[in-house]
């Protein structure tokens, strides 16, 4: 396929994005060719603005365009409970529930020696620093139930326990509204392991 040079450049930039293959990249590039100049500028500006204004919140390490993120500056939220997640998108997922009224701490990944990620590369030191004033009474470890997520949770729990704070791990098992028949075996085994008395 021969594209004019600027078009080829746009296609190859799109291809670098996650989840975008050659076909989708081509479709997106042709779409941008069709839209008017104002729309194209809006898109370009949006991309640049994100890079320019979005920073990590110095308290919880979620993305924010303020000196301190909205959740961290909200006086109505419960400062005694802290939910530890691995990525900013996990905060979005939790916030959608409208259930959790505590604070967050974003680690920025999980421990994975295979990928060269050790605990010192995550925001774990910063998490411990948040414990010093004694305001936090409970920590919920909400990393993914993968080998790496579990290990990260276990490691952090080991560091927090001596501080006398309550540490819990989010439950994993059957999805709500799920069908036993369709659940995979790993999920069922987990559900059995994490069962609770009613």
């Amino acid at each position, binding site marked *: 396929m021969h594209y004019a040079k600027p078009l080829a450049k746009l296609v190859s930039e799109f291809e670098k994005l996650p989840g975008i293959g050659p076909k989708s990249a081509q479709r997106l590039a042709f779409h941008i060719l069709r839209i008017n100049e104002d729309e194209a500028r809006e898109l370009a500006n949006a991309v640049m603005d994100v890079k320019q204004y979005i920073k990590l919140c110095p308290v919880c390490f979620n993305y924010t365009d303020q000196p301190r993120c909205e959740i961290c500056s909200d006086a109505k939220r419960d400062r005694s409970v802290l939910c530890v997640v691995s990525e900013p998108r996990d905060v979005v997922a939790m916030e959608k529930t409208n259930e959790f009224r505590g604070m967050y701490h974003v680690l920025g990944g999980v421990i994975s020696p295979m990928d060269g990620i050790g605990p010192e590369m995550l925001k774990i030191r910063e998490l411990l620093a948040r414990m010093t004033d004694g305001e936090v009474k409970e920590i919920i470890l909400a990393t993914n139930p993968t080998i790496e997520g579990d290990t990260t949770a276990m490691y952090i729990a080991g560091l927090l326990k001596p501080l006398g704070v309550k540490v819990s791990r989010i439950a994993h098992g059957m999805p709500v509204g799920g069908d036993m028949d369709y659940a*995979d075996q790993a999920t069922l085994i987990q559900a059995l392991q994490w069962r609770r008395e009613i």
Partner: protein
Amino acid sequence: MDIQTLSLTNFRNYVDLNFIPSNGLNILVGMNAQGKSAVLEAIYFLATSKSHRTSRDMDLIHVGVSIARVNAHVDRSERNDVELEIVLSRAENKIVKINTVKHPKIGDIVGQLNAVIFSNSDIDMVRGEPSLRRRFLNLEISQVSPQYVYALGRYKRVLDQRNNLLREIKSSGVQTGDLGAWDSQLAQYGSTIIARRMKFIDFLAEEAAKIYSSLAGGSEELAVTYKKSVDIDLHAPESEIAAAFAKLLSTRRGLDIMRGTTTIGPHRDDLVLTINGLAAREFASQGQQRSAAIALKLAEINVMQESAGEAPVVLLDDVMAELDEARRARVLEITTGRCQTFITVTGLEEIDPSAVAVGSIFDVQSGKVTPR
């Protein structure tokens, strides 16, 4: 448990096969390279998601095409009947379907159909490397325990991560704090594996000893033991095994870092076979080794029947020619009338006339199976 229909599309040399076996003894007769073993291979593949002849799935796809399919209807007395299917593709990962529903995890198919396969390479289980015996344990226990499949997968992942970390610590000289967390993860999944293996081997050993002495005429004694990393009692709860394993990992931490690998755990364990007290791997004659291998496999039929509640399908892949008359008779005696059995031979003279009389005979020639 028996297979009611088996259909193969572009599997090995079968372009399109619809095979309806009997629920007793099925004798597949044909010259070499006609596709006898491929039928058994397909059944074993549905049972374990792995071939007993190759570790490369691509070898199973017919030359010149890109997609192969194996499908079977299985009649089960203890559970509902089930339709199993695996689709192999040169371009993508294999797909597993149970009752036409696609399952994201390949391992989900393991245990739906129980099969025990006898092949020429069984003797390697006795005389070969420990890894072959671990493979035997893993494949067989997986068939009866989904939890084992799960623990094994998680264990391998933790082991890879821990070994990576050990190499990293070795080269940097700095011990990171997360090693302890990896140790407890390894201990958790490792203890499940060790506990399941102990139970399996305990039962297997008893059955194998009985069968071996009947094969050897009662003068010799076969003992099967689990050479395990953790010294622990058979009835110890998993939490106790995990604690003992974790303790072992911490005492060997220095050594593990020096070697840059995890030097202890179920990935290093072995199944030890002795005949009259001597290690079968080194001291047994070829005949004794062969008998020990057959005794293990025959014992496995009983173990599987016990844990699944019904007899497994038995696959005898070109083993009859290797055996003397007494052992052949014993194999057929244990399987016939109890298990649906598939047997491959180049000529009917290889098996007992009484077996030929009760069996259904199929001729296999260049990718076609025809009832005689």
